[in-house]
């Protein structure tokens, strides 16, 4: 029974740490499916986390925080869109620039506004998204195995966790069952086909990056006002890049993206759980090595275990009408 308890704890933690990855990964999916590569997921998430925590601290409302996070991340997404869609700039350079701007400006503004060394004030009460107890969770708690699974694993997360997981079927539906999705997938594969069909490539790609902004904003808000109680500098800690790796791993498909994010989340959760514990045979493993595991796994998986991941064919290439 103790083993089940430990596994439940790890899975519960897995879900919590997977959420920012999942939101960022789906964010990247919209953008990259439309042919706009985005390595600025990290920066947008960070900016969203900062704006969310700041607004929540000032207004005392988690919802205002979420709104500020989304608006800020959409703004950065539009900057990326302006550089790479309207001005046909290099999408990688633009993404890197956004990461740098976000990393620097959150610290400077945080220090200027709150004077706590780049942190935002600690949030509590309505300024955070608290845990939601799903109906019946308490009633079934004592049912063996399934009870704890429902009441601890599924119930008791914040709203954004449920939103994130609902975004998976929603994204699938948008992508494969709607006109917008058809066009979105087409513009990432062959923008000229979209253009000659009388659809604006520019507007379509802008809508995609706006979606990306909304989702990265939510990812950031989750980090600073749901999972944690405030913004800490560099709190995204590479999650935007892991999300990109998960996106490639999932071959730009929503459902596999969820599983990829859960896998990376599981590794992170397990690494936290087993930190400092001696392993059989090997003995004590340095914390740094455990922390590096998700990254090492990413390299190994991407290097050969997933087969060939073919990105959207027009990805990374600004659309120019050919002469």
């Amino acid at each position, binding site marked *: 029974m103790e083993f089940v308890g430990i596994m439940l704890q790890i899975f519960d933690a897995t879900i919590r740490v997977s959420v920012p990855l999942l939101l960022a990964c789906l964010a990247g999916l919209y953008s990259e499916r439309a042919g706009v590569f985005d390595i600025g997921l990290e920066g947008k998430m960070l900016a969203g986390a900062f704006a969310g925590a700041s607004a929540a601290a000032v207004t005392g409302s988690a919802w205002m925080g979420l709104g500020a996070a989304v608006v800020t991340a959409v703004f950065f997404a539009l900057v990326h869109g302006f550089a790479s869609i309207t001005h046909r700039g290099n999408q990688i350079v633009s993404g890197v620039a956004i990461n740098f701007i976000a990393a620097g400006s959150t610290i400077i503004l945080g220090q200027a506004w709150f004077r706590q060394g780049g942190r935002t004030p600690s949030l509590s009460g309505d300024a955070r998204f608290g845990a939601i107890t799903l109906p019946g969770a308490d009633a079934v708690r004592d049912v063996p195995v399934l009870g704890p699974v429902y009441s601890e694993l599924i119930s008791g997360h914040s709203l954004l966790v449920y939103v994130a997981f609902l975004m998976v079927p929603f994204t699938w539906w948008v992508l494969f069952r709607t006109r917008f999705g058809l066009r979105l997938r087409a513009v990432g594969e*062959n923008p000229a*086909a979209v253009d*000659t069909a009388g659809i604006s490539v520019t507007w379509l790609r802008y809508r995609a990056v706006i979606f990306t902004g909304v989702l990265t904003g939510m990812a950031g808000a989750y980090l600073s006002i749901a999972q944690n109680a405030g913004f800490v500098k560099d709190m995204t800690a590479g999650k935007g890049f892991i999300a990109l790796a998960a996106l490639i791993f999932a071959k730009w498909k929503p459902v596999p993206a969820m599983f990829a994010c859960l896998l990376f989340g599981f590794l992170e959760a397990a690494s936290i759980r087993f930190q400092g514990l001696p392993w059989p045979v090997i003995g004590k493993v340095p914390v740094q090595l455990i922390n590096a595991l998700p990254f090492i796994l990413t390299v190994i998986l991407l290097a050969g275990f997933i087969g060939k991941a073919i990105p959207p064919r027009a990805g990374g290439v600004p659309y120019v009408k050919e*002469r």
Partner: protein
Amino acid sequence: MAEAAIELVGINKSFGAVRANRDINLEIQRGTIHGIVGENGAGKSTLMSILYGFYQADSGEIRVGGKPAVIKTPNDAIAAGIGMVHQHFMLVQNFSVIENIILGAEGEALLKTSIAKARSELVRLEKEYGLEVDPDALIEELPVGLQQRVEILKALYRSADVLILDEPTGVLTPPEADHLFRILQKLKDEGKTIVLITHKLREIMAITDNVSVMRQGAMVATRETARTTVEELAELMVGRRVLLRVDKDEAKPGAVKLQVKNLTVKDSRGVTMVDDVSFDVRGGEIVGIAGVAGNGQSELIEAISGIRRAVSGSVELDGKPIDVTGFADPGELRDRGLAHVPEDRHHVGLVLAFEENENSILGYHDKPQYLNGPFLNIEAIQKDAEEKIAKYDIRPGNPRLRTANFSGGNQQKIVLAREMEQDPGVLIVGQPTRGVDVGAIEFIHKRLIAMRDQGKAVLLISVELDEIRSLSDRILVMFAGRIVGERGEDATEGELGLLMAGIERQEAAE
């Protein structure tokens, strides 16, 4: 006379300093097939892109059915009943046929109903015009002929009355092209108007009712097809008399210079592209390899010239083996007298960012005549480039100009001059006249015949069947990686066409 479906009045269009279209007037009669011919860069595609709303004219007017129409985007063109089949298909490769057809014409926000509607509409179009295609097949799995059919269906699904086809036969086998022409004829009989852009004069003569000729951005003439000739059209296109037939004497084949035995080549995915191919080329003859693009010709010449490693088989140059399965390298082969004019001059044949003189010695730059100790002898290289420019009539005649600024025909001449002037014993030429205009084609063909007459062995691959037929002394046909037939220079287009499509003569007779 029938009424005009489309009228273009005083169309002008410039790209920077280049005037792509100047004061174009054109009238296309309803229910006819109207051909537009001209050399590469004459402005045909630009004009049609204006009509389709892909570009906007700087000035001028478009009238559809007698009424002035404002066509600013492809949407306007579609609304006016104009559809276009682009030279490079505007299809999404990993989408199904039906998804490609509804893209941009879905009607509703959810796909379910629009797909159902498209399905029944496709059945109707299939019956009416004989355009059969599996609606659920993925585009990337369809042969190009069918992909083109999807493009036509796309236009018809948007109820186009006027159909513009830009160089539609470039990628087709002769039987596929014939099938396309039957479809076009059928569309015409149903009252559609068809505009056919091509540089192949024979197609114009075969299928069009009227033909307009463009030269250097201007419309130089419009003729009734029945009252003109290929010679007249060629002269109008180029602006001077052109010799369409290549004059050549009887070949005098000498010793075997290049011998290929049981060569097998696979591509990077492990698919066999060249399958147990054997042939030889003698001095003083041109051996042509005909075939639809993608049937292994490219891999074959890459393997022989040391660019791609073969899996098995052997190749001998002047009786001595080339290590094609191991470490054959193009530099060594060049020293042994094997020159190669690659198919893709932009990516393999030239460095476009280099100056002309640098490209004109590329690969031969370590020959003593171009060196001054360890350094390049700039003066000698310049002088050498100038000589080649004069001999091959490369324009503009400036060896310091960036290669990207030369036209396709002149770039090809730079490559040919470089390879031919080293006096190789064996010359392998891929697509010597792809994207090259009529005037330069004549020149390039003459040079190739001259090489042959000097006793060199020439191996020619080309997707232009006319080119293969007029230059080659022997013709090999490649299909699915194999040589499926050998014919003499008197082979008819019909029998080569069947071989290219993989159909043996006996089968065809049945």
